[in-house]
């Protein structure tokens, strides 16, 4: 099917594709007959890339979901946003908005929209017009207004939009003319532009939504996505595959180097590694550290390594009497043998963390260094705090593998042994993942292993979200609310000058270091294996997998 579509969309300049494919098929048949090839998988048609993804997407409406697997399948392929992250970086570049201006009070953002951008078509929808301000309005009004007609017909929540605080902060979105949109904020948010580059802010077609509403099929928005992005959604077969065709009308033609993009859904990591080795897929989602050596040894595979935009850490619940004492936290901080953890848990695929945010985050304070491993000094500090013979506490370990911590149970066991050396008896506690998070947010733990992967490349996403007073009942797992720190972070949030913000955050990081609400353990390294015939694949710091700009030889 995809083949016919691509032919119809092409001009006479490219009819050789079918011939090429037929020749390849024939060659393959000959090879199979000659016993040179065992399976039909060995030869690949030109311009088709197969990516082994880890799970079926929950749906194709990026606004409804939170996970990388969902975004890879929709936001990174089918959709665009007003502004976008540059491929492989946290830098924001223009997307569907060509340019934007910010008012002097930093509360009004005016976007000039790109002209001539076409939405995709499918069997039931053909766009009658190009992308314009109505589409931006529809996208954001649906998320903002609970009485929006589309939301009434197809009720859903927008967890990421809510989580980033946009539902409370955007006061209105207006169309000034078909190519100009204005956002007005209630409070200054220095990370606003970054937030608009995130997957959940993908621009939907108002025209398509209107048609779905009329035909009584609003849920198709989530099943048959229509966007402006580099790949056109063709077909999804649950738990098996998603097929896309390169968008021949894409507004950035150089980014579409593939005729076809196929997501092969392969849940088991060992099987993904085997498929990659055999050439049944050209790119896979990140492998387990244990599979890495054999993948690296394969001459046909390149492993692209990049420091992860993440942090695995242990948070001390300062609401608990022992951990409320600074000396105790300092003692626990220096009792952890991070080097041993790095080699056993991360198996070399990690980098020791000195600071409470990753080094690739702008505003990172390089002067801050990890406390030296010193059990003797830790013991002395404990004695000073009134616990010469230690104490008992719980140490929570995640039941699941996360990008920032491949094996929390092992990490907890190693830390338990480290703590035992200074007389602290840590009891390892774990719960099922959903329950773990629920109880952790309530603050039932003493010390807890947890972590974070950056959402939008803004320091506020780390400093305020994980350590600020606003998040004490949520993702601030230390339950630490320290005014001198919080004042700096709040001030930085409403400061738009980057140099000034950096200074504020650098100072905040010093306070964080001295107060030890957490011990940063490691940033895991992203190891992305790709076969050598894949050209210019870039690893996303956010853990996403994007295939625009990628080609196959």
């Amino acid at each position, binding site marked *: 099917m995809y083949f016919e579509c691509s032919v119809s969309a092409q001009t006479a300049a490219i009819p050789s594709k079918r011939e090429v494919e*037929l020749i390849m098929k024939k060659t393959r048949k000959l090879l199979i007959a000659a016993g040179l090839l065992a*399976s039909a998988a060995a030869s690949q048609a030109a311009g088709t890339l197969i990516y082994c993804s880890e799970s079926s997407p*929950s749906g194709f409406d990026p606004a409804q979901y939170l996970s990388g697997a969902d975004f890879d399948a929709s936001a990174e392929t089918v959709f665009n946003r007003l502004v976008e992250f540059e491929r492989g970086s946290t830098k924001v570049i223009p997307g569907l908005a060509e340019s934007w201006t910010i008012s002097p009070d930093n509360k009004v953002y005016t976007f000039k929209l790109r002209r001539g951008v076409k939405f995709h078509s499918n069997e039931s929808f053909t766009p009658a017009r190009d992308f314009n301000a109505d589409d931006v309005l529809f996208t954001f009004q649906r998320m903002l207004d609970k009485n929006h007609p589309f939301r009434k017909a197809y009720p859903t929540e927008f967890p990421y939009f809510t989580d980033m605080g946009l539902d409370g902060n955007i006061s209105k979105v207006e169309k000034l003319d078909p190519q100009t949109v204005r956002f007005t904020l209630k409070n200054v948010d220095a990370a606003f532009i970054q937030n608009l580059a995130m997957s959940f802010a993908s621009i939907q077609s108002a025209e398509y939504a209107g048609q779905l509403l009329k035909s009584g099929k609003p849920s198709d928005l989530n099943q048959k996505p229509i966007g402006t992005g580099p790949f056109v959604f063709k077909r999804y077969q649950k738990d098996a595959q998603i097929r896309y065709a390169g968008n021949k009308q894409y507004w950035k033609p150089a980014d579409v180097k593939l005729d076809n993009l196929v997501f092969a859904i392969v849940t088991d990591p060992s099987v993904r590694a085997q498929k990659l080795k055999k050439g049944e897929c050209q790119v896979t989602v990140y492998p387990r550290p244990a599979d890495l050596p054999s993948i690296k040894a394969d001459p046909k595979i390149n492993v692209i390594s990049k420091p992860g935009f993440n942090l695995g850490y242990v948070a001390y619940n300062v609401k608990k009497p022992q951990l409320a004492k600074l000396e105790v936290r300092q003692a626990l901080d220096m009792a952890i043998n991070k080097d041993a953890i790095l080699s056993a848990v991360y198996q070399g695929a990690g980098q020791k963390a000195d600071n409470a945010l990753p080094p690739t985050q702008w505003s990172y304070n390089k002067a801050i260094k990890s406390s030296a491993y010193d059990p003797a000094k830790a013991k002395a500090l404990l004695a000073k705090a009134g616990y010469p013979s230690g104490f008992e506490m719980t140490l929570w370990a995640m039941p699941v593998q996360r990008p920032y911590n491949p094996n929390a149970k092992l990490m907890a066991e190693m830390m338990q042994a480290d703590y035992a050396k200074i007389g602290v008896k840590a009891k390892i506690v774990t719960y099922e993942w959903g329950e773990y998070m629920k109880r952790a947010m309530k603050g039932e733990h003493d010390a807890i292993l947890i972590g974070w992967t950056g959402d939008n490349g803004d320091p506020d996403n780390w400093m305020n979200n994980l350590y600020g007073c606003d998040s004490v009942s949520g993702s601030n797992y230390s339950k630490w609310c320290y005014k001198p720190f919080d004042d700096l972070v709040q001030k930085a949030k409403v400061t738009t000058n980057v140099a000034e913000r950096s200074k504020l955050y650098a100072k905040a990081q010093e306070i964080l270091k001295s107060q030890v609400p957490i011990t940063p353990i490691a940033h895991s390294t992203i190891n992305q294996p790709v076969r050598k015939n894949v050209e210019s694949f870039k690893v996303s710091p956010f853990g996403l997998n994007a295939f625009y700009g990628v080609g196959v030889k």
Partner: protein
Amino acid sequence: MFTFILRRLGLLIPTFFGITLLTFGLIRMIPGDPVEVMMGERSLDPQMHAEALHRLGLDKPLYAQYFDYLGNLFQGNLGESLVTRESVWTEFTTLFPATLELALCAMLFACVLGLLAGVLAAIKRGSLFDHGVMGLALTGFSMPIFWWGLVLIMFFSVTLGWTPVSGRLDLMFDIPPDTGFMLIDAWRAEAADPEYNAGAFKDALMHLILPSIVLGTIPLAVIARMTRSSMLEVMQEDYVRTARAKGLSPARVIFVHTLRNALIPVLTVMGLQVGVLMGGAVLTETIFSWPGIGKWLIDAIGRRDYPIVQNGILIVATLVILTNFVVDILYGIANPRIRHAK
């Protein structure tokens, strides 16, 4: 015969209720609701949480949820997935052909090899072949499916390159799932465009080999052992001795007089293996990225997708019960003593 069938059917009703109660209760006993699970490390906005639970009908008391569920069930409404929002029935019918295709192939593999090995082992009782086959059967029965699958992939797919690693068809073929049975779809697509889809059927067949072996291993072992012991028992019977004494050929004695009677208990075991196959399908489908209902249910449990777990398990359980019901009836036909009991 009619009362026999009615009596068997009557037994099914409490079983159905038992299953609905069990699946409804068990999935809710796992902590965390679908919204909490989706949020992961993120803080959950209480208002959004409440709205989502209300939309999903999960804010009602448990008994009300259960009666809603039963009410919908009686109207033939299996509900929709909380995550993908597709109807459970649509998702089931999309995925079930894959599981059925795999289970049928695995059963075919297990029955043919199992019967053959069992009969031969019985004939050559006490020989090296007998000990070898029974030893292998025991090993097969105790083999962890996950490990066995990976070993086969590493050896046959990666080292030798004979079979594909996973999936149902090489993704270079773009064949829409008309029937959902890949062998049929691939065959039809190849017939429709022999040049463009050349080799599709063979490719689909190659993809079936390893998963069928993995899924069929345990039933194969059970069938082989059962056939052997049942054969040995029947071979002691007077009528077999009589048949031999009449001078019938050994083949006729074995296949007509012995095997036919020895098959009755084997048939029951085969029926029971359908349940085992469904259980095994969960793991086999995960290893071989086989888009069937086993994998579907596992994902649904992880995501707390209650309607899928409840109704998916209910459908699977119904199928297993029905298969055993049919086996019971076949058994009644084969052995009149059963249907006239009581």
